[in-house]
């Protein structure tokens, strides 16, 4: 069989490794065969291609060393930085918050757990395990691992020596330039070279090709030049409307912390592509980021009517129902996920909780048993914690204590477990232990108000009013509208000013 035909066929069958092998053989025979060269490049790129829109994560450096910040204190509901200010949003009292002051989301995706911390120290201190740590910059080793192979040495040197290549020669030939650009961007992850090529190529095609403009925008975006990226995307959109461009322009606005502009962009996109799932998902996520759960869930519902197997939408709607006191509805959504073939610890954990709160007691514990047997290392702690909650609900404090201790032994930085353990110890009258647990929970998770409040209430009861006063202020910092904290603070203030 003709080797070129074989290589092409392999490429189509997505057997990239064999395709690369065949291409290398061909290139050894004739190093100047451009068709084979392009095919090899494409195969290498495809091997490592990642959906950079989904996998995108804002690094610590981007969050802190950003010089685009305009308003320090944005008006309520217009910034992703302080979602707590939006009106009608959920509060910590109903829906637990993650460490960044954001309600938990139905699905874990980059950015839901570690978005925009308040301070640098907080960002660096977050329990940094391999699963939860955020990268220091988005151009860090992690993206290299995700998207490129350049870290691993290849036998016989790299396929293309970027420093030696004359980009100008290729820029004028669109059939060569486009694969080469993608190769540089995804395989080599060399944004500088990619940008160079893109600039030359747009000039060569006299600024008429929208594809190059999008690529230019992509490069500017990863270099942090948001306004330039915005310009390129907008200009590309004038020439040709494409879903990806809308999404990327939206991301630019999110990075600039202008979620309302991002929403506008996505809505414009929806006019060209009505009911497009990716755009709808983007809108729903932005609303979730703004802590506007009703709107978010509205869009997620729209997604479900279009695509009834969208895991993210179903999970988010389920979560919303659970935290708005309708566990029976949540149960139905999670059951749908189970029917779709999802079979993991998180799902069974959620099913168990829904069953318990919807009073379907016969299924509760078997769900948790399933969850435990399926759990991976980093979920075990949460599942033990939830079983602890069930045990507290049943009234078996001994069992609850054991479960919470197991949660802590699985994850020594599980702050809610420390807090609940503290409450259990307090019920048994062991004040010192309780206080130690509250302190531990507070130091591990300063974003939770419960440990602070418990600690303050305990100190108040013991007569250590000064400590209580200091701690209750921290509680109010974490959750300003917590009425019992406010009442305690008020009582303490009254006590201090009274002669």
């Amino acid at each position, binding site marked *: 069989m003709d080797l070129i035909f074989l290589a092409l066929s392999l490429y189509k069958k997505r057997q990239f490794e064999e395709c690369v092998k065949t291409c290398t053989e061909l290139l050894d025979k004739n190093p100047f065969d451009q068709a084979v060269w392009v095919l090899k490049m494409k195969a290498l790129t495809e091997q490592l291609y990642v959906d950079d829109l989904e996998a995108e994560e804002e690094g610590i450096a981007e969050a802190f060393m950003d010089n685009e910040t305009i308003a320090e204190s944005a008006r309520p509901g217009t910034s992703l930085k302080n979602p707590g200010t939006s009106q009608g949003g959920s509060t910590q009292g109903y829906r637990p918050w993650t460490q960044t002051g954001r309600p938990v989301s139905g699905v874990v995706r980059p950015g839901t757990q570690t978005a925009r911390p308040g301070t640098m120290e907080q960002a660096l201190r977050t329990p940094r395990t391999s699963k939860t740590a955020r990268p220091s910059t988005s151009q860090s080793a992690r993206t290299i691992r995700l998207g490129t192979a350049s870290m691993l040495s290849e036998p016989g040197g790299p396929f293309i020596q970027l420093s030696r290549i004359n980009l100008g020669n290729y820029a004028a030939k669109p059939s060569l330039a486009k694969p080469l650009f993608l190769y540089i961007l995804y395989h080599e992850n*060399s944004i500088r070279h990619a940008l160079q090529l893109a600039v030359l190529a747009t000039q060569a095609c006299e600024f008429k090709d929208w594809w190059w403009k999008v690529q230019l925008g992509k490069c500017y975006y990863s270099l942090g030049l948001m306004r330039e990226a915005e310009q390129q995307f907008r200009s590309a959109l004038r020439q040709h409307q494409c879903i990806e461009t809308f999404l990327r322009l939206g991301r630019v606005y999110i990075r600039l912390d202008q979620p309302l502009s991002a929403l506008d962009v996505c809505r414009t996109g929806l006019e060209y592509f009505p009911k497009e799932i990716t755009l709808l998902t983007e809108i729903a996520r932005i609303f979730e980021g703004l802590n506007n759960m009703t709107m978010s869930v509205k869009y997620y519902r729209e997604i479900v009517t279009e695509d009834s197997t969208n895991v993210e939408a179903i999970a988010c709607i389920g979560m919303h129902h659970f935290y708005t006191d309708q566990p029976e509805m949540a149960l139905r959504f999670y059951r749908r996920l189970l029917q779709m073939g999802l079979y993991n610890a998180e799902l069974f954990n959620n099913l168990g909780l829904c069953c318990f709160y919807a009073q379907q007691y016969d299924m509760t514990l078997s769900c948790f048993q399933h969850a435990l047997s399926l759990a991976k290392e980093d979920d075990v702690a949460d599942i033990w914690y939830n079983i602890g909650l069930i045990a507290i609900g049943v009234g078996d404090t001994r069992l609850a204590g054991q479960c919470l*201790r197991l949660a802590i032994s699985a994850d020594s930085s599980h702050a809610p477990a420390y807090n609940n353990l503290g409450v259990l110890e307090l019920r048994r009258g062991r004040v010192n232990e309780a206080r130690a647990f509250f302190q531990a929970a507070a130091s591990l998770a300063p974003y939770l108000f419960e440990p602070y409040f418990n600690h303050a209430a305990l100190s108040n009861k013991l007569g250590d009013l000064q400590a209580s006063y200091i701690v209750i202020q921290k509680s109010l910092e974490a959750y300003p509208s917590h009425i019992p904290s406010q009442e305690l603070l008020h009582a303490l203030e009254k006590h201090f000013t009274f002669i």
Partner: protein
Amino acid sequence: MMSSPRNLEYEQLWLNAHTDTRAAVYTFSSCITLADLNADGDFKLVVADLGTGSTNVKLKVYKGTSLHSETALLDVPTGVTSFYMDLNEPRMPAIAVASGSNIYIYKNMRPYFKFSLPSMDINPLEKDLWMQVRDEQIEHGVFIELLNNLRAEIGFSQMSTQSQHLLTLDSSNTSSFVQQNCKFPVKRQTVVTCMTTLKKALAEETAVSCLVVGTESSEILVLDPEAFTILEKIKLSDEDSTTLAVPAVLSACGLHAVEFRIVAACRDGSLRLARRGWTETKTLVQLPAQPVAMTISPDNASITIALMNQTLQCYSKKGKLQWMINLPAAACALCPVPLPHQSATLVAVSLNGGLLQLYNGRQLVDVIKAPQSVSGLVFGRFGQEENALIMFTVDGSLLVKILKRTAHFNLNGGGNTASVAPGAAQQIKLQIPKKTRLFLDQTMRERDNCVMMHRTFQRDLFQLRVDVARACVKALQSCNNPVSLEGAEPLKLSAQVLGLGPLFKMVISLQNISASSMIQGLGILFHFDDKMYSMDKPFINVPLLVPGLEYPFETMIRNISELALSDQVRVLVVKDGQSQPVLAAIINMPVCDLLGMV
């Protein structure tokens, strides 16, 4: 609904004349005064900068927006005031700075006179003791013991300054202190706590004034401005009780030669009045909280006082409570704002957080926002400007605002904005989600199969208990517990990993959570893959652990692996002579971020 348009109106009344966020002047209202120092009609701002509280204490003069002169002060001042002490032309006021037990008088910003408060009687026994120790008749130890006995007898406040200082020292420093100080005569002096002025014979603006000084020994002294003799000495005691009250804030009105009233707000929360010819004060009222700042209205001698319980209260001259308003935050400072063109005197109250409110009587007429809480506040003539409001914030910045000449406060009416329609809170509907059809169906199921469900649940619960117990035993056997279980050493361990890598800092904190028993003989051991990590201190010796305190232990850990992988590190707390670790925790190390090339 009324508040937003009113706010706009407020802003227009004041002009921002000067803002200096780097002035770095830390002061209080009592240490700020405005004076026509050179008798040229250009009023200067004289302010005592408290600096850090011990160093950088300076008397600063601002001319316009720039710093005109600076004079170092020896001690922290408690009050600064300007007054005319003679009838000489040109009419130049003197500046009085109260500091410690002295009052320094400056004229033309040059030191002019120092007035020391009269020294007080010393217990003869104490004097005798100091004499004996000087002549080395008694041992130092015996001397201190005798002083301590004396303290028990007459009370700490009745002793001399030296004895007081000596008795507060550590036992190690006493003998050197005695040696240094026994040569000096024994003195007992009081200190100035607050100061104000009182016009002597004429009510004119440039008339001669007396200084009124409140002291720590619970006295109010009225000083003659020329000879600096004590004209009046008023005890702050009560006829029915022997307790003395130390004045914290003084206000005076009237003329010394005719009739005057001095009101002292005392530290014990009493408001006391002194009048001409009295040798003792009379308690007007016992306040519900400690005073922050006070002013007397010149018209009807009513007293407006800000208290520490977030209220602003007004008392008549007889001590009757006239009105009381709750402030939105704690008051920091207060100053009168006389507006002759509107024939009213407002009261400006600065609140914690930076809000400044102006009240006409009990009516809020204006609000100013400062970037920080204002600690020092004064209103008066500054430069050529008639109505200037000078503010010093807690972070040391200086703000000057000028009242527009056309400004007109809406003094009558404006409505009571504070009132909220009663029952408004009861009309808010609670958002209770409706019970769904599904819920009802499930309830039916529950009702029909209750016995079966209960049995299943109980069976599962027993199964769960067994599982949990097994898992607990497993955790116990593998010593995988950051919190000790019952019976073992009451310890708690928590660990944090800081840094971006490849060098991390690991902070292990140990806490003894027992009620009273100490724990010793512990060590922290790290167990890790030596191909992946290297550690500064793989073993840390733990000192004696006192109950309740958290002890942090730090070590550096470096990822030495070529591949960007991460591993687990086990932390074990071990005890001497025990083969099993007391506690253990697994730390999932973060991935180290090698910065990629862009």
